[in-house]
């Protein structure tokens, strides 16, 4: 059964624009807390820039570590946006309405955070910024397109540009709404962003077309971004990295991780801004069902990766698989990945009464992401620690405090940016909520009244 609290347009506008004008106490706590961790992050990165990468735990052969694991993790989280807003828009799922903007914003901020990592982890970041740009800044030397590290920024920047355009386009009617309700410098700010939106028929038509077009265009980007990131690993000949399954495996892992992050965000928004009328239990229900399918798909690919790493019965991979499955700390991580990533959350999500419980959805979504971060580490590190027969060079990797600060700080960065965003722009798309209200109908079937949705055909 669906709760249909019919809301007036004015009521919707007022409630959804409330975060722009008032700041609940918890939000201040958020700003200060996250701000503090963010400051540590900035300090850690500066320290690393000044002293060099020696302050990290990296060595030969562990040339990549926590920062690259974190990079892959945040790219994964960024897949939520397109999944929720583009795919659900194209399949005309109504339940996407309250979460599309938050999901898109999370995509953008997590992409930006992710992009930081390959830059700060290089030996000379001040050169990295422009030498990977497709221009021969330096004596006719272009970047090498054979290298996955050139495909990466191309794909990620495309995704970032596309997502930003997408977010911005769908925000224009709300900018106009804010413009009409504010005064002073705020009014000027929103007027510029609203690009002269008047809400006439032609503009609404463009808005709908733009929504569908951008959704369609961003879909191939969405699949290719994490595939390309996965090929950073898979095209190399590191044993257990050189697997053909990495591309779809990473993409579905990203969807699993990203959609769970959206659930976390939904719960936080509902609690922080008191959006009970908008982020309703039926939304958690629907997203929970999506997560069951996505999670099961992820499990299949994870098992394929494990089985086919063992299948060739070659010493190089077996050594690493044995290390991963049976030795500390990877044996614990393996269990964590299975249990946190699948065997606790998915059986819980099978039951509707648990899907409709916001606290349970919140905690299971956090579990999934703990499991998924562990999975990224499990995927990336063992291959480097035990690469090939040169046991003389096998070595442990221990992240330093600098790397740990950077990882924790990245969470603070995304959180802080999200909070700032919700102070300036409405975190739930006002016009899409109103549209949803119009589309919501009721159908009389015999003696019963069934909730219905209007569709254009």
């Amino acid at each position, binding site marked *: 059964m669906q709760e249909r609290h019919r809301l007036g347009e004015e009521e919707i506008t007022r409630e959804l624009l409330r975060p722009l004008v008032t700041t609940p106490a918890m939000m201040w706590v958020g700003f200060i807390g996250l701000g503090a961790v963010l400051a540590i992050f900035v300090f850690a990165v500066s320290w690393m820039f000044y002293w060099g990468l020696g302050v990290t735990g990296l060595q030969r052969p562990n040339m990549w570590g926590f920062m690259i694991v974190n990079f892959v993790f945040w790219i994964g989280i960024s897949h939520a946006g397109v999944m929720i807003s583009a795919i659900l828009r194209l399949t005309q799922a109504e339940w996407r309405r309250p979460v599309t903007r938050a999901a898109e914003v999370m995509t953008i901020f997590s992409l930006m955070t992710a992009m930081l990592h390959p830059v700060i982890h290089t030996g000379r970041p001040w050169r990295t910024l422009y030498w990977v740009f497709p221009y021969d800044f330096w004596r006719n030397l272009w970047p090498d397109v054979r290298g996955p590290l050139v495909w990466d920024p191309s794909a990620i920047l495309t995704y970032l540009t596309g997502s930003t355009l997408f977010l911005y386009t769908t925000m224009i009617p709300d900018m106009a709404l804010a413009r009409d309700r504010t005064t002073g410098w705020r009014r000027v700010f929103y007027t510029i962003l609203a690009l002269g939106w008047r809400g006439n028929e032609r503009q609404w038509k463009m808005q709908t077309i733009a929504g569908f077009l951008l959704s369609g265009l961003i879909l191939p980007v969405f699949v290719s971004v994490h595939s390309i990131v996965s*090929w950073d690993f898979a095209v190399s000949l590191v044993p257990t990295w050189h697997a053909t399954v990495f*591309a*779809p495996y990473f993409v579905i892992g990203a969807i699993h991780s990203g959609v769970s992050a959206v659930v976390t965000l939904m719960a936080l928004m509902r609690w922080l801004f008191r959006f009970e009328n908008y982020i309703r239990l039926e939304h958690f229900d629907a997203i929970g069902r999506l997560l069951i399918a996505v999670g099961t798909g992820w499990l299949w690919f994870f098992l*394929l990766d494990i089985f086919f790493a063992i299948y060739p019965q070659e010493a190089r991979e077996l050594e690493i698989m044995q290390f991963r499955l049976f030795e500390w700390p990877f044996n614990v991580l393996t269990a964590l990945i299975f249990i946190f990533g699948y065997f606790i959350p998915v059986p819980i999500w099978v039951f509707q009464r648990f899907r409709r419980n916001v606290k349970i959805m919140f905690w299971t979504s956090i579990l999934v992401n703990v499991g998924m971060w562990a999975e990224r580490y499990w995927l990336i590190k063992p291959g480097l620690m035990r690469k090939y027969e040169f046991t003389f060079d096998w070595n442990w990797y221990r992240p330093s405090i600098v790397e740990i600060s950077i990882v924790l700080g990245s969470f603070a960065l995304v959180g802080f940016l999200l909070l700032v965003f919700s102070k300036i722009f409405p975190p739930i798309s006002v016009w899409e909520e109103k549209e949803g209200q119009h589309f919501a*109908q009721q159908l009389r079937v015999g003696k019963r009244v069934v909730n219905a949705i209007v569709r254009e*055909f």
Partner: protein
Amino acid sequence: MATHGHAHGHELQRTWELAPADVLGSALRWMRSTAAALRRPLVIAAILFVIGIVAIVAFPLRQGFANRQAWTYVAAAFLYLMSTAAAAPALSTALRVARSHWRRPVNRASEIWAVTLVIPFLLYLLLLPTFPGTEDRLSVWFGWPLSPWLWGAILLLTLTGAGYLFAWFSSLPDLAIVRDHGEPAQRGFAAWLSRGWVGSHRQWRIYEKVVNNIGVLYVLIYVPVMTVLASDFIIALIPGYFTAVFPAYFTITSFQAGIALTIVTMAVLRRWGGQADYLGREQFWALGKMLLAFSLLWFYFWWSEFIIFWYGRTPREIDILRFLMFETYLWPFVLSFAMNFALPLLILMWNPIRRSIAGPTVVAAIVLIGNLIDRIRLTSAAFSQPDSALLGHAHELHEVPAAYIPGISDILILIGMLAGALALVLWAARYLPFPSVAEVVGGLWLRAHQPFKHARLIVIGKTE
């Protein structure tokens, strides 16, 4: 998809303006006319099937199980049937779970293919003796005793059972209609199948709850079965073929073929089965979009494997690429690439073509042929390795065998088995009405039209 504003110019499909009595009438007309109309195609298909069986006995069976290459086209027929007929019910499940409102006339067109499962199951039992045990060779069973024979057979048996269960359970209400209103010849069998269905409140509640779950169960068995088949039939038989994505490629491309088969079935039903009122542009457009999406996925999964092998450039990987794609089986691969990906993309990327009846149908037929060529390519490659090349946990493709060219017996086997599947479907169609009355009438209640300013909109009820 709103692309041109309010003046869409497409007519509302007649389906949703019919009364339940009309739907029932269509179904009964189907029951009355099919027996006669389908007799000739059924007989022809049955004869071809018998010829195919004779070809199996006369050629591979007579040579015994030692020469695996003789069984290539038996395996190709098996894998193709598993990729098309067995995949179609999975499409039906996906549509049910996603609660698409246009799915109702389509479900039976895909679920009916589950009745063919006995043929691939029997072919599998025939093929099992050609496989050596897994103690001395690489396989996903890792030397587990009695593998792949016992465990593979159990898996296939479970899938077959789940498939028949799904087809039967979803047809229950309509089987009751056949029992009550059908021709006398059909009533007895339908009565037995419909098991006392009276359409009580309680029965409907159980039906609604369970039918989706059985479909999901079928998919949950289908995916592991295809994973195991891809591993046993292709990966494990080509030494040095170390790939983790291939089972996923195999499963996803099977879903693509299942969608194609459903579209072709719909086209046949519409053109010759009098289903024009039910299977219209709405269904073809939606499935056309899905077919385009899965054709793109065909490319994606193929590319995932190719780029890793090609970039790695180890001799082992280059040998595999040469064998499977670029030298030995170059032409089957090129055709498969064109028919599974390039042509579907180039044709279906145009919205007017997607939004027609002919467009998706033509592409679906192309994909069905492309999928067949692909399965033949893979099976021919895999079955041309003698046991000696595999034993001792072989890691390299030392000798690249020549491409296997089918003989007349192989063609007869292939055509025969496909004809057998078709014969089973034609036979089942005498007992299952089209349109699916329970589904379509159920959908009638949940759709209405409403004027909205100067447009007409459809309103779709969302229960639960």
